[in-house]
């Protein structure tokens, strides 16, 4: 039974660690499906986390924090949009700039406003997104297996966790069942076809980038007001890049994105778990290997050794109407 409890704990931790990856991954999905590369997911998430923590600390409301986080992240997304859509700049360079901008500004402003070495004040009570229990979670906890799955694994998370998983079918629906999704995907595959069909490509791309901003903001808010109780310097810790890796791993599809993020979330949970633990037969597995696995897997996948990941055809190329 002890092993089973550990497994539940591991999976519970997987769920929590998957959430920011999933939100950021879906964020990237919208942008890249519309033809705008985004390596600035990390920065937008970080900025969102900061915005959310600051406003939550000042107002005591996690919800106001969430909106602030979204607002800050969207502002960053718009910078990316203006640079890469309006000025047809290099999308990679713009993404790099966004990441530095977020890293610099959050710490600088955090220090200026709170003087706690870049941290924001500790959040308590309503300033955080707290978990809520499903009905009868307590009573069912004692039921073997099913009980702990219900009360530990499924119940007890905060609203953003459920929102993140719910975002998967929604994204699928939006992309593949709506006019907006059709036009968005076409903008990333053949923008000229969209233009000649009488649809404004750049406007479509701006909308996509906007959604990316919103989702990154939620991901950031989850980090600072859901998973932790406040903003800490560089708290995204490369999650934006793992999300990017997951996006490639999922071949730019929403449901596979969920699986990829769960896999990568599981790997980071496992990494935390295994710190110093000895495994039978293999002995001690270096935790760093587990941590690096998402990146290694992505490299291997990209190189076509296991399947082939080909992104949207017009990705990274600014749309120019007139010669």
């Amino acid at each position: 039974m002890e092993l089973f409890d550990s497994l539940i704990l591991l999976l519970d931790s997987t769920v929590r660690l998957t959430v920011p990856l999933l939100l950021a991954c879906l964020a990237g999905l919208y942008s890249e499906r519309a033809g705008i590369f985004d390596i600035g997911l990390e920065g937008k998430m970080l900025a969102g986390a900061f915005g959310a923590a600051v406003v939550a600390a000042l107002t005591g409301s996690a919800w106001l924090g969430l909106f602030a986080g979204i607002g800050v992240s969207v502002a960053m997304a718009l910078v990316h949009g203006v640079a890469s859509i309006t000025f047809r700049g290099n999308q990679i360079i713009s993404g790099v700039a966004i990441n530095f901008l977020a890293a610099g500004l959050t710490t600088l402003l955090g220090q200026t406003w709170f003087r706690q070495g870049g941290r924001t004040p500790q959040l308590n009570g309503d300033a955080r997104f707290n978990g809520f229990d499903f009905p009868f979670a307590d009573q069912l906890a004692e039921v073997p297996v099913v009980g702990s799955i219900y009360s530990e694994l499924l119940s007890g998370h905060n609203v953003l966790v459920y929102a993140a998983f719910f975002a998967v079918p929604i994204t699928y629906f939006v992309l593949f069942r709506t006019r907006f999704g059709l036009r968005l995907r076409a903008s990333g595959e053949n923008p000229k076809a969209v233009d000649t069909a009488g649809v404004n490509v750049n406007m479509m791309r701006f909308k996509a980038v906007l959604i990316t901003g919103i989702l990154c903001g939620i991901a950031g808010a989850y980090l600072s007001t859901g998973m932790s109780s406040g903003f800490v310097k560089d708290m995204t810790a490369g999650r934006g890049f793992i999300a990017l890796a997951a996006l490639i791993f999922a071949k730019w599809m929403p449901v596979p994105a969920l699986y990829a993020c769960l896999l990568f979330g599981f790997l980071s949970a496992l990494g935390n778990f295994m710190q110093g633990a000895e495994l039978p037969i293999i002995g001690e597995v270096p935790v760093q290997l587990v941590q690096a696995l998402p990146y290694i897997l992505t490299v291997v996948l990209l190189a076509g050794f296991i399947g082939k990941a080909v992104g949207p055809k017009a990705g990274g190329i600014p749309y120019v109407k007139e010669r």
Partner: protein
Amino acid sequence: MTDKSQANEQRSSGTAVSQNAAPQLAIELAGINKHFGPVHANKDIDLKVTRGTVHGIVGENGAGKTTLMSILYGFYTAETGRIFVDGKEVTIKDSSHALELGIGMVHQHFMLVDNFTVLENVILGAEDDALLQPSLDKARKVLAQLARDYELEVDPDALIEDLSVGGQQRVEILKALYRGAEILILDEPTGVLTPSEADHLFKVLETLRKQGKTILLITHKLREIMAITDDVSVMRQGAMVKTLETKNTDPAELAELMVGRRVLLRVDKGPSNPGDVKLEVRDLVVKDDMDITRVKGINFEVRAGEIVGIAGVSGNGQSDMLEAITGMRKADSGQLIVKGKEVVIKGDDGAAKLRDMSVAHVPEDRQELGLVVTFEQWENAILGYQDDDKYGKGAFLSIPAAREEANRHIEKYDIRPANNRLKAANFSGGNQQKIVLAREMSRNPDVLVVGQPTRGVDIGAIEFIHNQIVAMRDAGKAVLLVSVELDEIRSLADRILVMFDGHIVGEADPATATEAELGLLMAGVSADNAPESDKREANNKESAK
């Protein structure tokens, strides 16, 4: 029937009375002007198109046909000029506005999303509401109806990338019809089609005309104009030259109007004096990047002191053959023999190998292949020969030596402006071509492979380039010339091979072959569809004489 097409029907039933034009005109353009940078692409264009007719627009490449139609389709905005649709003056803001006015366009390069289905492509931009399913259902019904009406059969659930080129074109036409187009613009629609697909297209157009649609057909093929149009307008260098009734004109007149003056492409050249075989291909099969077989087993040889011309409609495998012969592409099978030695390409630097064997290559596309347009002329003067010790010993590059070479090119080939520090992008098309020719010819190669030597080059430079190619022949070089300009082939080549669908379908003597005979061969209508091996023997016999 769709709402939109009903609306269009109302419009075409002619309630609007024009103040400027007779009501039977579907389109009237007046005084259209458009520049691209320094290029005056459309100069004061006037055009009247009668409803229910097929109206052809002919002109050479770059005459401004596509620009004019793109203005009509709202893709570009004219600087000046007025547009009347069904007698009403309109300002077409963008493509969606053009669609609302009942104007649809089938572009030369299809505007389709490859990994979408036919249905998805058809409704893109014309969806009825936020959810797709109702639009998809409706489109499925409409397509079925259109297929019956116009013989436009396509599987609505097929992915575009799985369709043939002809199938993709049908989707483009369906897209326009689905949007209720009453006026259909087709830009060079047969350029990518096989002859049978082209025939089918013409049947479709015929049906469309009968149903009262107006069709604008852009082409540079006079045969098509004569076959299907009611009226024809000729454009030349951005200007509208003349509009004629097709039945009152003939190809000769149209050709003269297109070119302006009869250009005598006859080059002064004596009889050829063929020597040893310098270049030979045997059963050459070549696939393109998409893994489609483009060259399907061809055989020929080129001897020292002769020009062998490969004629054919663009897209029949010539480009891939050129790349295989010059080492840029691995042959799928078959042999390439240069000066008696078989050449096998392994890595992606095969072009260097062929250059080492003294095979020079003037590529079809100078801007994409033959030049680095952001490099200065002197840097382009050594492209492909950068490893030569002449331009620096060992690993180093001698800028003075390269500049000296560049200046020799400028002088000998009259490249203007005579400035080796100017970027290649800043030279005119003719001078860019001279930069490439100078580089390849001044190496004194044994074999010269030339693709489309005068594409987009002005008349004066054409003459110069042709004379240079003949001079190479007279100096005892083996010259292989690939061109889609039949006149060019006829005036330069000593022997003509015609390529169609990856095969060499015939050989002709330029002195005796008529344009009609060659045209038939180029269209794939050869007298005999004999297997390739027989022809090879025939070729060998021919060249053994």
